[in-house]
């Protein structure tokens, strides 16, 4: 307590020190006066009286010194002194300070901005109570592949487990919703009873579903998201008057979720999944599982529990079930999924960049240390302790680092504010990205680590070697500096190696990206306008009856005829889903090759035939019309496409993709073969293959062409699993076409919302995360290259200055300018060479980690390595050429006199 008080007083008095000094001076004066007076009274002569008084008082300066030490805080004072000294030095030598601060700012700024993304996406816990207990649950196939849950399996998991406090299933998909201010096509989630309990979130207004709403054919009910409620329901507080109608049913709104609740991401409303029961199945993997493990139960225990149940199901139902295990993963991990690799790569790259910027500043400090050896020697000779000198260096590097850090945080703040524009839309949890306390803490930590390591490094270099020697050695001696220069060389070699790693990474990503966008998807991507909308589809069943189909065809015909009439429209087609853009969501399944057999009469029969592997194949199921192929520009390879003759009553036909033909009917003609794909649309009518169309990379450009079976929507219909899309090819301005098309839709189907887009935009979304990663790693690569160039330049330039005399002697002895050039550039080239070799070795190891993000190129692609090595060497040579050029022009006479 007492010492604290003393500390505070000292802190205070050290501020008003001048006043204190004045007080002491006055007290001393008074003391001496009184003593002198006493001495006079004792009979001393006047001069002796004062002398005796001063003698008795003791050494005034020493006392003042003690007094000062007593009243202030010597540590803080010397610190401030060092700070002032440092600032003076920086002002006298602003070039050094500016370069060092900017270098550190780039490194710390980039690291901070990247960390803010990593923090929000990977590190921060989810916004649910006890979120670490929330898990995603899957069925797992014998090959380790995770599957969504089939309804009956889910029921077993839910009722038989003893490790989950709650276990729920959900699925989401686009629906047309009206009842609000305007009809919209939005994501709707069907959720099972424990869904909100598993997440631990209560509605902001209203209530969760009650049991009457969670049974087959019960009372419909919907809970809406805060965003939907605000935007389309006018934030109405009286929920009892709000109703949503979707897919032909009306749902009273019973609750509104809080604004931060967004699960599954982007959903506008939740409805009970029990309302529309599906047929019990053990292999229709429709449900995503989510659960909350009980208190005291680990994720591993929960998984073991579900595995046991899964094995029991497999034993009991055999072939009917295709699972033999279960997977349980914390929700936070499941959400980020493959983004993790990309983010960790970014974090790694930015870490390397920070390392490079530190190496650069360390190099600068080293150069200054060499230049300051004399000053240090003088200070040491005047009695400065080694600790005091180390403190000086620490203060210098702290000042540099904090200035760099502050600037870096400014850079990071502005970077974070522009991030939303470049972040891929599919990056989960990106709303949370901000410069917050934990990010600032990270930045502070980075600054302190940088400062301390730089300071200790500089101090170590300064304290190394004999200061006395530095003092006595004339300016002509370089002996003390050789070690420092070598060390700078090592730093630069390290920088070059690190830069090479980043550049190789960036180039691999870049070349992957170029390959990806130059890969033909199998159709013409330009000038394609897509119009996704929802057709009236019969509720509760997948197969299309004749009347529903006629109605659908009639409507679609009307729409497409009108669309074709828009000026500028070239061709119009109908699709059940967009290839590439829909990517993973394209329906795929197992089909039967009948080989002359009778088509299956029912699904048991289908399942029996499917046992014979030679009679099955796997393909995407694509609904199209005859205009589709022409509009997309998918060529016909053989046979015919859909035609007028194909109607509901005529034999059903299929067009298959070339890769499927090659896979299943190698060296045979598949045309005329009968297949059955009834499991996709509940329609067991067999299909006759009538044509082979060109390959399409439907899954995405980074996948090989998928085997596809196209069916004619005029025969099979747009069923509930399709996302009906009308595509139009036109080189007229998109805006005009969309405006005209909008009017047509509005007139013909006033309550059906339509999502207009272009294929290029859809592709853009698909490529966004790769573009983002490439952009950032590329940016880091460029920054690293610039820093490395500065580093090389610094070392070579310093070495030239140091060797001016030597160069002068060489020239006086007859060396040509080209010899000097070779001498100096050779130094840079040597460093570059060693750095490049080390970098290549490091890259070979490190780039392997990113192979999952590469496309069409190996992680050790020789061409990339060679190009980057050459580029880096050229930059290194250019950076050393500038000082070399200066050295070449050295006048031998001046050089010899150079001190």
């Amino acid at each position: 307590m007492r010492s604290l008080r003393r500390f505070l007083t000292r802190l205070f008095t050290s501020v008003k020190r001048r006043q204190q000094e004045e007080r002491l001076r006055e007290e001393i004066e008074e003391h001496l006066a009184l003593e002198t007076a006493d001495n006079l009274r004792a009979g001393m002569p006047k001069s002796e009286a004062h002398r005796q008084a001063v003698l008795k008082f003791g050494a005034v300066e020493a006392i003042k010194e003690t007094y000062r030490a007593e009243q202030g805080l010597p540590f803080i004072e010397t610190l401030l002194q060092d700070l002032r000294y440092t600032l003076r030095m920086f002002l006298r030598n602003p070039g050094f300070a500016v370069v060092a601060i900017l270098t550190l700012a780039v490194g710390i700024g980039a690291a901070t901005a990247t960390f803010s993304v990593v923090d929000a996406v990977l590190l921060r816990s989810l916004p649910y109570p006890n979120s670490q207990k929330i898990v995603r649950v899957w069925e797992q196939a014998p090959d380790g592949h995770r599957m969504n849950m089939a309804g009956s399996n889910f029921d077993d998991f839910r009722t038989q487990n003893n490790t989950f406090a709650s276990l729920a299933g959900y699925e989401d998909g686009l629906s047309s919703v009206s009842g609000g201010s305007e009809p919209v096509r939005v994501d709707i989630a069907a959720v099972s009873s424990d869904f909100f309990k598993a997440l631990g979130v209560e509605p902001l207004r209203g209530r969760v579903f009650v049991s009457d709403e969670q049974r087959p054919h019960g009372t419909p009910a919907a809970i809406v998201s805060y965003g939907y409620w605000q935007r389309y329901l006018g934030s109405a507080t009286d929920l009892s008057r709000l109703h949503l109608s979707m897919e032909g049913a009306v749902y009273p709104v019973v609750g509104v979720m809080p604004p931060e609740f967004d699960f599954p991401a982007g959903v506008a409303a939740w409805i009970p999944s029990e309302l529309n029961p599906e047929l019990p199945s053990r292999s229709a993997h429709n449900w995503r599982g989510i659960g909350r493990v009980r208190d005291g139960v680990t994720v591993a225990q929960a998984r073991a529990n579900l595995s046991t149940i899964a094995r029991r199901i497999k034993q009991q139902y055999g072939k009917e079930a295709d699972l033999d295990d279960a997977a349980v993963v914390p929700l936070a991990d499941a959400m980020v999924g493959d983004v993790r690799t990309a983010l960790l790569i970014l974090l790694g790259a930015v870490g390397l960049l920070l390392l490079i910027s530190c190496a650069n500043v360390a190099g600068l400090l080293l150069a200054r240390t060499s230049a300051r050896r004399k000053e240090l020697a003088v200070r040491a000779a005047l009695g400065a302790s080694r600790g005091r000198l180390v403190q000086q260096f620490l203060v210098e590097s702290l000042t540099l680092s904090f200035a760099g850090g502050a600037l870096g945080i400014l850079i990071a703040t502005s970077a974070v504010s522009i991030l939303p524009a470049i972040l891929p839309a599919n990056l989960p949890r990106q709303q949370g990205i901000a410069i917050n306390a934990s990010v600032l803490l990270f930045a502070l930590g980075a600054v302190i680590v940088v400062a301390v390591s730089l300071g200790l490094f500089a101090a170590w270099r300064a304290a190394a070697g004999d200061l006395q020697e530095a003092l006595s050695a004339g300016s002509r001696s370089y002996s003390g500096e050789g070690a420092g220069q070598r060390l700078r060389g090592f730093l630069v070699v390290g920088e070059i190696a690190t830069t090479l790693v980043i550049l190789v990474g960036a180039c691999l990503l870049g070349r992957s990206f170029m390959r990806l966008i130059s890969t033909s998807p199998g159709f013409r991507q330009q000038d394609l306008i897509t119009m996704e909308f929802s057709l009236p589809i019969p509720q509760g069943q997948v197969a299309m009856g004749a009347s529903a189909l006629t109605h659908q065809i009639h409507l679609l015909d009307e729409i497409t005829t009108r669309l074709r009439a828009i000026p500028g429209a070239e061709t119009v087609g109908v699709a059940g889903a967009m290839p590439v853009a829909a990517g993973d969501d394209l329906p795929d399944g197992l089909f039967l090759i009948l080989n002359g057999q009778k088509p299956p009469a029912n699904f048991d029969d289908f399942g029996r035939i499917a046992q014979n592997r030679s009679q099955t194949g796997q393909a995407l199921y694509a609904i199209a019309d005859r205009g589709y192929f022409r509009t997309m520009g998918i060529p016909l390879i053989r046979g015919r496409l859909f035609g007028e003759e194909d109607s509901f009553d005529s034999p059903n036909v299929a067009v298959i993709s070339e890769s499927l033909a090659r896979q299943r009917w190698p060296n045979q003609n598949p045309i005329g073969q009968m297949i059955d794909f009834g499991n996709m649309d509940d329609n067991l009518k067999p299909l006759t293959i009538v044509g082979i169309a060109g390959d399409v990379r439907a899954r995405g450009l980074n996948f090989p062409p998928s085997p596809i079976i196209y069916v004619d929507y005029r025969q099979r219909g747009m069923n509930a699993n399709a996302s009906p899309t009308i595509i139009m090819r036109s080189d007229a301005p998109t805006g005009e076409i969309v405006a005209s098309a909008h009017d047509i839709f509005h007139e013909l189907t006033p309550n059906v919302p339509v999502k207009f887009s272009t294929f290029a935009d859809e592709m853009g979304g698909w490529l966004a995360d790769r573009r983002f990663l490439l952009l950032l790693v590329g940016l880091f690569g460029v920054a690293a290259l610039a820093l490395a160039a500065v580093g090389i330049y610094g070392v070579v330039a310093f070495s030239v200055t140091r060797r001016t005399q030597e160069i002068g002697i060489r020239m006086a002895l007859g060396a040509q300018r080209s010899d000097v050039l070779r001498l100096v550039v050779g130094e840079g080239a040597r460093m570059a060479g060693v750095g490049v070799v080390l970098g290549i070795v490091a890259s070979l190891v490190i780039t392997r980690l990113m192979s999952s993000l590469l496309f069409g190129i190996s992680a050790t692609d020789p061409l990339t390595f060679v190009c980057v090595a050459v580029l880096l060497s050229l930059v290194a040579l250019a950076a050393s050429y500038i000082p070399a050029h200066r050295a070449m022009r050295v006048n031998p006479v001046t050089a010899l006199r150079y001190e």
Partner: protein
Amino acid sequence: MKQKTDVLQGTLALMVLKTLDVLGPLHGYGIARRIEQISGDLLAVNQGTLYPVLLKLEQEGAIASEWGASENNRRARFYRLTRAGRVQLQAETHGWNQTAAIIGRFFAVKAEDLS
């Protein structure tokens, strides 16, 4: 000249407190004079060392100071004991007495006492 012991230096603070306790508010010279008188000229030289001690005590809150007029009517800093200082003095007096008693007993010990 005889060297002053460190113990004496360390006890200067205690002497200051005791002096102020007995004599009431005093200026620096006054304190120095009293200590000199009582200690038998042991503190005759280096009176200046008193001032850092005074500052330390003031910072600790054991004494307080204010400007006043000295006997020759000049401005002088007068020090007085605070309540905290009095408490401190009591505690330290007790400690010293104890220590002195123990040391005294040790010095009084003769060989036969220990046999």
